[in-house]
């Protein structure tokens, strides 16, 4: 009995020491990851500084014409930093990008839209009743404000628009696997419910994690997604680098 008790004690302490060693190893691994990110961050900050000063030649000419529509996803906690948002938009406009979609999950940017629009002369609010092609050809700045309710919930509302079409067509509910609705019908239905809009060429995510936070799924099929870090740490040079990287990407679109 004494032996089995000693065996249990030994097992208990072995497990305990094993768990402590595992935890220490885990924290050590994460510390190494943190150090790597910190070092990479310092290098990026230096590069960004050099780009801002115009000292890196390859970033001097950007093929801005490749970006017809830019989306900026902002973490909702940062979305209240209106001055940062305005500064970022000023940088984007200065680079020659005039058609911008601003997204935050909770719709905080929607509440600040008047304040933001006031800062840009001639800027108009994106109206999804307009034809996308005509809008994108206009030289004036357009701003679209989007939130989570323009994503999945909008698709559900659009589904009901399509349901009415389905009923009016006299469908019986037994189509046997044939496709009933097309992409363009869905896009029209989304416009009808007020959540249409072009697909952005590029999404810049300003937040702690590389996550699009619910940007409308229908509108990001082939959209490049770049993570920029927190909004409070935004840098002009990083913006240029992200846009430069986008302009060098080659897409096959599945081919």
């Amino acid at each position: 009995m004494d032996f089995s008790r000693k065996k249990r004690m030994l097992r208990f302490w072995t497990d305990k020491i094993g768990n402590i060693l595992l935890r220490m190893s885990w924290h050590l691994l994460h510390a190494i990851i943190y150090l790597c990110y910190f070092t990479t961050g310092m290098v990026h900050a230096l590069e960004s500084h050099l780009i801002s000063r115009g000292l890196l030649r390859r970033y001097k000419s950007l093929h801005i014409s490749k970006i017809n529509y830019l989306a900026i996803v902002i973490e909702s906690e940062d979305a209240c930093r209106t001055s940062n948002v305005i500064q970022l938009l000023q940088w984007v406009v200065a680079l020659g990008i005039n058609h911008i979609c601003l997204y935050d999950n909770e719709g905080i940017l929607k509440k600040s839209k008047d304040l933001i629009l006031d800062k840009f002369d001639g800027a108009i609010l994106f109206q999804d009743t307009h034809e996308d092609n005509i809008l994108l050809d206009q030289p004036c700045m357009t701003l679209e404000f989007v939130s989570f309710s323009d994503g999945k919930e909008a698709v559900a509302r659009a589904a009901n628009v399509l349901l009415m079409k389905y009923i009016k067509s006299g469908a019986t509910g037994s189509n046997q696997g044939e496709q009933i609705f097309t992409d363009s019908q869905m896009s029209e239905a989304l416009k009808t419910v007020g959540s249409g809009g072009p697909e952005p060429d590029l999404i810049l995510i300003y937040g702690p994690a590389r996550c699009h936070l619910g940007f409308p799924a229908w509108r990001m099929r082939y959209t490049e997604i770049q993570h920029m870090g927190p909004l409070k740490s935004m840098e002009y040079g990083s913006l240029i680098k992200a846009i430069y990287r986008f302009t060098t990407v080659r897409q096959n679109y599945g081919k």
Partner: protein
Amino acid sequence: MAKEVMSGWTRVGNVSRGVSSVIRECIFGVLRVGPIPNHIAFIMDGNRRYDKKQNPGGAAVSGGHDAAFWALVAMVMYCYELGVKYVTAYAFSIDNFKRKSEDVQILMDSMLRKFDLLEKVAIHFAIRVHFAGNLGPFNNEFRVSAMKLMEATAGYSNSLLTICVAYTSRDEILHAIEESCEQKCIDHVREINSDGDHIIKLMDLEKNMYMAVAPDPDIIIRTEGENRLSNFLLWQSCGSHLCSMSVLWPEIELWNLVLAILNFQKHKPYLERKKKEKQV
């Protein structure tokens, strides 16, 4: 073909035994101190570039796709050992039908050859296999083989491997709307008022998605250094950590997966908070 199979099994064999297995268990033991993702999705990009690397200047061959299969098997085994319950792989997009017909045929033949091997692996590890997407465009042999594989593994519930074929998110959303419309018509044809006001709800769409078999992915990993989702899991990726790796898919290794999981663990508290805010 036999040489490729042997090479593939050698890779799998190295995964499953020997010193590498012990080292891997130690690494996984450390990883398990933190949160382990419940669902990892892979965009398996880079197979054709791998093919060109191995066979420069040659005609299109299936070597890249064959190597891709073994890379997938290795990743599924790692995820299974680590305790990741759901794995999803983007094998073939509807957009891929735009490729040259001979390239599409090579890919189809490669996939068809792998079904028996995949069944053996799935049965060995008690993993259920599910095909998500519209199998309509495929020939009868492909559809029958896919159904047979799903039936052979239907009884397993510990882990799920979802293979997306002839899949795009837009097609998935449209399919979910169509299914919901049919169901509403059949169930409520007399009750629909003239406005049709909010008859289809979000949960109707969610349950009719091809990917309704699995929860939303925690991590989406894309290889070949690309930074887009290419019409993959757009609906399900609201709270997913997006991970881009420069490695080509057939060359993906354990350390790539470990790094992705460590990154996920670093951002997990934030992603969890975002998920809870959405539910509220």
